[in-house]
């Protein structure tokens, strides 16, 4: 198997000091300026829960990896965006898996990944199917894993219908993180998303189904937050169905204590065989999604770094090493390496302090150097650094700099969910399309051809900043640009 996701060695940066010195020093810390919720934004107990969870902390997602195991295929509802038969190794979206596992097989797989990937911090069960409905298999898997790997956090995702029946066990099992998918509060809207639910021995449809589901979802949310379990609410944004309704969903879940609200774009394609796919329901554009997220700005904290990963994903968000850990590839004897995870976590603790300090300095500098909000597309394979070759990037992490600071604002994919179907030429076209409003691409290296293609499209590719922290590099770019403008003004 290949090396860990982020090489722990070789992360020292030669020019950080130098660059730091060129930046103006300031007193503003990254966490108080940005929205990437760091330790300064929440109480210590909550921070302790989320600091290693890549989905619950944007900051953590630069460092920590999650894995999903598909052990719970049975589901108690039908959603119009789901087709239970689907399975494709090239597809990356929720509900898609390549192999289903028994709890015993899943525990073996988790052990194998933990031994190989020191970044692993979270095990999630997130379909296909419903983790709370298919509870026996979910519980059996978690029990096996927590016995062998007590340092791995447990996390589950559910439609909520069966959740209220398992709240006490969830608390007993130390499942600190639960995701409930709530896409509608009004039953009239829910009925257009859920054709049926199975509840108390009966298949129910229409408003009855949507009302029961909504009530059980909100009940589960309240019960969990009362017990200090962090709840993330996922909502699937479906244009024409719930886009105008999302602010109300956001408000309702915030009132009930949701820690995060993750508004995800519907993924819809006739080839997926879903009701929405077959009936031509489209997903939202990036701009539509951003508008809805911005409209919800004052409500529950929004998650903007979701990658809508596969139900058997392994690795950092935005990266999937699942195919390296299929059952047939697991070693006979698995030796756990908890000391590697301990060492990695200790390294992260130092690194993230260092990064926060660097980001604080950079943000202060950037605030002086930027006049209009400016977008940056960053090629990174983690650790908050520019450390990925442009040609290797299948997604860009998007940062926005303005007078308020430098913020992570989401990611943009350039593989259109399916790498197999694109040649290099198609990929460049796709990249230029998704980055059309972005003036700068920051990467570790870029070839002459792609650099020119980007330049022709008005996008400047910068690969001269080494493995710098993202915020530091952005500040440097802005300052250099200002210096150039000043020089030009003086010589004119």
């Amino acid at each position, binding site marked *: 198997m290949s090396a860990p996701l982020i090489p722990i060695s070789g992360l020292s940066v030669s020019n950080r000091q130098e660059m730091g010195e060129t930046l103006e020093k300031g007193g503003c810390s990254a966490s108080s300026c940005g929205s990437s919720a760091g330790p300064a934004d929440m109480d210590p107990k909550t921070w302790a829960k989320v600091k290693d969870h890549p989905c619950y902390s944007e900051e953590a997602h630069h460092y920590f990896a999650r894995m999903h195991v598909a052990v719970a*295929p049975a*589901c108690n509802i039908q959603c119009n965006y789901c087709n239970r038969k689907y399975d494709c190794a090239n597809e990356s979206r929720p509900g898609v898996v390549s192999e289903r596992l028994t709890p015993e097989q899943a525990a073996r797989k988790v052990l194998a990944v933990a031994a190989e990937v020191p970044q692993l911090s979270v095990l999630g069960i997130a379909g*296909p199917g419903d983790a709370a409905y298919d509870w026996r298999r979910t519980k059996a898997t978690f029990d096996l894993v927590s016995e062998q790997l007590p340092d791995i956090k447990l996390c589950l995702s559910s439609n909520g219908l069966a959740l209220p029946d398992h709240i006490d066990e969830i608390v007993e099992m130390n499942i600190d993180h639960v995701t409930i998918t709530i896409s509608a509060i009004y039953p009239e809207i829910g009925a257009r998303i859920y054709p049926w639910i199975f509840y108390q*021995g009966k298949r129910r449809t229409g408003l009855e189904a949507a009302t029961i589901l909504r009530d059980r979802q909100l009940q589960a949310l309240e019960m969990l937050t009362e017990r200090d379990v962090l709840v993330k609410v996922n909502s699937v944004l479906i244009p024409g169905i719930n886009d105008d309704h999302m602010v109300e969903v956001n408000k309702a879940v915030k009132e009930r204590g949701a820690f995060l609200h993750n508004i995800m774009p519907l993924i819809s394609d006739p080839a997926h065989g879903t009701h929405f796919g077959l009936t031509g329901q489209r997903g939202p554009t990036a701009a539509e999604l951003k508008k809805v997220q911005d409209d919800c700005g004052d409500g529950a904290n929004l998650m903007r770094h979701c990658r809508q990963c596969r139900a058997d994903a392994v690795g950092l968000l935005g990266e999937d090493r699942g195919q390296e850990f299929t059952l047939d590839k697991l070693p006979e004897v698995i030796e756990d390496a908890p000391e590697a995870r301990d060492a990695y976590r200790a390294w992260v603790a130092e690194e993230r302090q260092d990064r926060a300090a660097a980001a604080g300095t950079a943000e202060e500098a950037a605030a002086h150097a930027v006049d209009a909000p400016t977008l940056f597309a960053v090629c990174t394979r983690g650790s908050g650094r520019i450390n990925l070759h442009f040609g290797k990037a299948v997604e860009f992490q998007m940062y926005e700099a303005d007078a308020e600071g430098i913020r992570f604002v989401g990611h943009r994919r350039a593989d259109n969910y399916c790498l197999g179907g694109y040649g290099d030429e198609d990929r460049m076209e796709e990249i230029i399309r998704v980055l059309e409003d972005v003036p700068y691409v920051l990467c570790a290296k870029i070839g002459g051809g792609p650099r020119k293609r980007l330049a022709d499209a008005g996008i400047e590719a910068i690969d001269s900043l080494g493995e710098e922290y993202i915020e530091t590099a952005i500040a440097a770019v802005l300052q250099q640009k200002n210096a150039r403008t000043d020089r030009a003004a003086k010589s004119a």
Partner: protein
Amino acid sequence: MAYKIVTAQCTVCGACEFECPNAAIKFKNETYIIDPDMCTECEGKFDNPQCAEICPVPATCIPA
């Protein structure tokens, strides 16, 4: 009087096994099958056969 599972359409999610009040559904040779001797079509227990109520694929749990 019994139900059967149309194997070619079955997604093997196992929800029917979970819901069957008679424990008539078993996982065998990579698929789920209903033991006709144990299946009562849920009569006296539920309004409709539970396997058909929960099955996500149309017309896959049907009268034998």
